């Protein structure tokens, strides 16, 4: 009876709809994937002899290459975004004043346009006779090679797509640094660099780390950038997974690859999120 009374307290009671939905819509599908990864290769029926054959197949193949590409590109994306976004995040909190809302809206809007459409915009920009090369040609008579379909452009596409996911958590983090603390440090004779290193960075860390985590996880799952902008020059792990599910019609193999990816992502997310108190990050005004 006591247990039931506890569940019907306001907090847990309000959490019920979300929890039930996520149980059915998030946990259950992931469990299905895990189960499928033990089923014999190229079959579609879940209830049969389970084995580790799919994992053995992966470890005996060259699947580590797409894994390495995905992780490497994700790390590069995160590092570039950290450098690109910090000045903007700083400006949002300390410099832009009443224009900060406008800047926020400008960075939010792209999120609402389908990612593949925006990437397609880059193709029109970079393609031969496109916006960039066409302008160069007509204005200067200069005709360089198109940089479309290179790994560098894949990386640029990822930086572009995931920028808001770094910027917003980072801005939240930077806004947690009290101006008084910075002023006090300056009054005590600290240099700009010292204030950045000893005050700004440590106090903004929760937001920065969340930004890192979010962009890393999403970038590991990136697929369209390499396919569309990179011209399939490199194959990320997500594309291998997609191929297994679609063209190859080998669901168990795709499931096993997904499980490995989920292990990497899940461990990282759980380890990092455990350390944070979300109330202070989100709720503090």
């Amino acid at each position: 009876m006591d247990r039931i009374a506890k569940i019907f307290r306001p907090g847990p009671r309000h959490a019920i709809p979300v929890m039930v939905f996520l149980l059915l819509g998030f946990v259950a599908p992931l469990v299905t994937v895990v189960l499928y990864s033990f089923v014999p290769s190229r079959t579609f029926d879940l209830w049969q002899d389970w084995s580790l054959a799919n994992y053995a197949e992966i470890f005996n193949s060259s699947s580590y290459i797409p894994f390495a590409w995905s992780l490497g590109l994700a790390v590069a994306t995160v590092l570039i975004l950290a450098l690109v976004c910090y000045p903007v995040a700083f400006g949002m909190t300390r410099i832009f004043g009443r224009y900060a809302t406008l800047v926020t809206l400008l960075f939010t809007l792209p999120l609402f346009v389908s990612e593949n459409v925006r990437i397609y915009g880059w193709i029109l920009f970079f393609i031969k006779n496109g916006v960039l090369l066409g302008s160069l040609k007509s204005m200067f008579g200069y005709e360089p090679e198109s940089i479309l379909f290179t790994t560098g452009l894949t990386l640029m596409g990822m930086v572009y797509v995931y920028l808001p996911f770094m910027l917003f958590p980072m801005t939240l983090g930077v806004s947690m640094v009290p101006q008084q603390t910075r002023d006090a440090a300056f009054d005590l004779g600290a240099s700009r660099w010292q204030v950045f290193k000893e005050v700004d960075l440590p106090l903004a860390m929760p937001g920065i780390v969340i930004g890192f985590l979010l962009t890393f996880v999403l970038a590991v799952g990136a697929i369209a950038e390499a396919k569309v902008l990179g011209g399939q020059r490199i194959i990320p792990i997500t594309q291998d997974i997609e191929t297994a599910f679609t063209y190859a019609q080998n669901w168990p193999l795709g499931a096993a690859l997904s499980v490995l990816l989920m292990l990497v992502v899940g461990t990282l997310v759980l380890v990092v999120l455990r350390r944070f108190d979300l109330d202070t990050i989100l709720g503090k005004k």
Partner: protein
Amino acid sequence: MDGSGDRMRRALIWSWTGVVVIFMYLPALSLFLASSTSSRYFGFPITKWGFVWWQKTFDSLEVHQLFRTSLAIALCVTVIAVVIALFGALAFARYEWKGRSMYQKLVLLPIFFPQTVLGLALLLYFNALGFTMSWQTAVFAHLVWIIPVCTLVISIQVYSFDPALEEAAFDLGATRWQVFREVTLPVLFPGIFSGALFAFLLSWGNFPLSLYTTGADTTLPEYLYAKMIAGYTPGVPVLGTVSTFGAALLMLVGYLMIVILRRRRSGGANVN
């Protein structure tokens, strides 16, 4: 602090932000340019300006059907997500309870998850349950990702909510339903409204989840993707530009509404 160095730094940060904003909008600009040419193929600089392709795209019956499917999915997602997320947000930020910190992290997990993998996982799941993919399964798939986002957006409003308002209403003899309708809902409305806006727009633009879960029903982003890989047609830039402008308009109207709502209530206990 030294004035000139400070001014210099401000100017640098402003210009850097400007560069980043331009970077964010170059693709949209390219799409717009490509949509406003009368020729079949895109070449820049544009020789024949015109909006022939806009006309052709809007007259296409196929495009009407795509709009209807995308709209049906986005509207269903918005209504369901807002209702569930409102309660989710109250549990997230309003009430103190044991297990709340754990709950907050669980809610975030679907956001911190690669969407392509989530889409494929849902495909497997629906298949194992024996469902046929349609726009209804897509609604479910979108919700898995959008309910957490919506919960987060509404929670930010709930954090600045003063529980004393509800308690005062209870003390004055209001029923639970009256308190919810007359106090909680109006005070949280700006947050709920932004949550709804996010839900609608994120569902409208979603591609990775729709790709695997819509079955025979096709949404606008899926159609655009299919056209993109099949070869160039000016219809893609037209629809891309329309989505961008549509989202911008909706966001602007939504933002103005929230500003007006806040103005009206400013002076009250809850300004932010």
